[in-house]
């Protein structure tokens, strides 16, 4: 795989920072009661969506989960309309009907977040089936957590994708936790990637390092693009915060949380960029300002947007 150049590196960095700051902002406005329902943030896991999606075209497909903000942003969703959707506003991508947990944007190939653990895996597989059927060259990326690999749909989908050599990359962000329960309670195997053998697929393990993920994802996307079939890519990721915003994660040892935080994919990447003289103090500040600006605009946009009107309730159930 081609190593990313400076421009690409800065882009990866900026995207990761964007996701982190968006999530932080969301925690803030959610806690202030501005967002209804519940949201799941991906702080600590920003490397994966950014690294993986950097290989995708707008027309490529992507499916995600309840913890999907990072994936949607990395795939290129418009931040303003994204924010409006989370606020439940009419200008959101789904007219305020989906909120965080079901956000979708067909124009960017975003097949949707999903409130059902494992629910998106066959859907992504179907998108890959359609792309192959239509010979469009589109690749599909399917994101999920390690907890989801215990659902039957994971098994059935990977089996189908493998027999049919579908152009799809299954990306498992193994953050060690499914809600309030650690992986050991639910899985006899340490590595999700070990499950790939059951489907005669390559199973690849990579640490929470944006450049390593970038490399392995590049190989997997290329493999898919060339018609050589699916890959199961496992990232040993880490969840810093609670399962949802508001979850104080009393079930975790402080030590373990600190360990997760120490594995900071952004700080590590930034250090490296600074070391390699790709980024200086001013560069860092510029990114920060830029990201701050865009988020403020998006939040203002969301705040100023209208809620859908009651008269819209029954609209468009059917075509």
């Amino acid at each position, binding site marked *: 795989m081609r190593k990313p150049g400076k421009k690409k590196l800065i882009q990866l960095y900026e995207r990761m920072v964007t996701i982190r700051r968006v999530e932080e902002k969301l925690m803030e406005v959610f806690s202030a009661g501005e967002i209804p329902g519940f949201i799941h943030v991906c702080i600590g896991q920003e490397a994966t969506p950014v690294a993986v999606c950097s290989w995708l075209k707008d027309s490529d497909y992507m499916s995600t989960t309840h913890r999907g903000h990072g994936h949607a942003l990395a795939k290129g969703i418009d931040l303003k309309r994204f924010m409006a959707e989370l606020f439940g506003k009419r200008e959101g991508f*789904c007219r305020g009907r*989906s909120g965080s947990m079901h956000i*979708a944007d067909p124009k960017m190939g975003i097949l949707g977040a999903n409130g059902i653990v494992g629910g998106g895996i*066959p859907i992504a597989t*179907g998108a890959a*089936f*359609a792309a192959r059927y239509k010979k469009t060259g589109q690749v599909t990326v399917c994101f999920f957590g390690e907890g989801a690999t215990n659902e039957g749909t994971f098994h*059935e989908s990977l089996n189908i994708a493998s027999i049919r050599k579908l152009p799809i990359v299954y990306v498992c962000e193994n953050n060690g936790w499914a809600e309030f329960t650690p992986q050991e309670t639910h899985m006899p195997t340490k590595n999700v990637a070990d499950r790939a053998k059951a489907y005669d697929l390559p199973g690849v393990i990579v640490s929470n390092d944006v450049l390593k993920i970038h490399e392995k994802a590049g190989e997997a996307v290329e493999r898919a693009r060339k018609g050589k079939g699916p890959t199961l890519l496992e990232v040993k990721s880490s969840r810093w915060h609670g399962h949802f915003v508001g979850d104080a994660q009393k079930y975790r040892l402080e030590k373990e949380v600190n360990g997760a935080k120490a594995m900071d994919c952004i700080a590590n990447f930034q250090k490296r960029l600074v070391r390699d003289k790709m980024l200086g103090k001013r560069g860092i500040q510029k990114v920060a300002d830029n990201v701050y600006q865009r988020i403020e605009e998006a939040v203002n946009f969301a705040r100023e947007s209208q809620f859908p009107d009651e008269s819209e309730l029954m609209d468009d159930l059917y*075509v």
Partner: protein
Amino acid sequence: MKEIRYIWAINEAIKEEMQRDENVVLIGEDVGTPGGSFGASRGLYDLFGPERVFDTPISEAAITGLAAGAAACGLRPIVEIMFMDFMTICMDGIVNQIAKMRYMFGSQYKVPIVIRTPSGAGLNAGPQHSQSLEAWFAHVPGLKVVMPGTPHDVKGLLKSAVRDDNPVVVVEHKALHALKGSIPEEEYLVPIGKAAVKKEGTDVTVVATSKMVHESLKASEALNQEGINIEVIDLLTISPWDKETIFSSVGKTHRLVIAHEAVKSFGVGAEISAAVSEEILDELDAPIMRVGAPFVPIPFSLEKAYLPNADHVIAAVKKTMERTF
């Protein structure tokens, strides 16, 4: 017109729609070279090849989700779920995903999917291969549900379902697969959402579905002997059902019987009855009677005693004739 069996009418409908639109694909277990468990896809693999006729592993949950993704990305999948009882395995795909994708995503997606599935008893296939579960799907906003009972209707409704940009559950009856009937030589459609008066009558409106339409027509003949002239309406579409046709018939006969093979309790008949008592109660001259299966699983051996039939329709009709307000 030509004579054709119900199962071949299905086969023709799929074939014609696949020929008309190359985005139509068939997905299911054994649908490939074997031509399907009941033969609905015989010959299609040879005509359309392995990409368009996708013979899948035994993975109902995945294939339903797969259809959802494929439809969102421009295909028009027809999914065969071999027995309606197996719909239990793919309810998430159908109910949480397919049915909701259009509305929940703010009308950004179309989800043109047909889910075909043979329901019903009559072959002594026992408790896990004989159920009629259409009421579940009718309770789910976003799905359409049709239930054709003749070769003519299954061909026309299946073709309409394939052309519909919304998900449609096509509930076949496996005991009707061998039934012969006549259909036009030329292409035709049967519209979704319209009931059909299969026999006009003046005394009692009998709204029936699928195989119970045939039982009701039998009942009609027997009742004729006794001077009772029932109107038999084939509901055809369970959701959204044709209120107009049913209400106008009840407005004429002032008596209503509803007959289906599914368990009577909490079945489709309850909704029709409730809508009538809500909206046109004063048209009624008698209680609304329902005919449906008793509240037990479908036994292997006592299937005949279990199944509702013409006699039950006759008894229900007579009950409505007994009393007048």
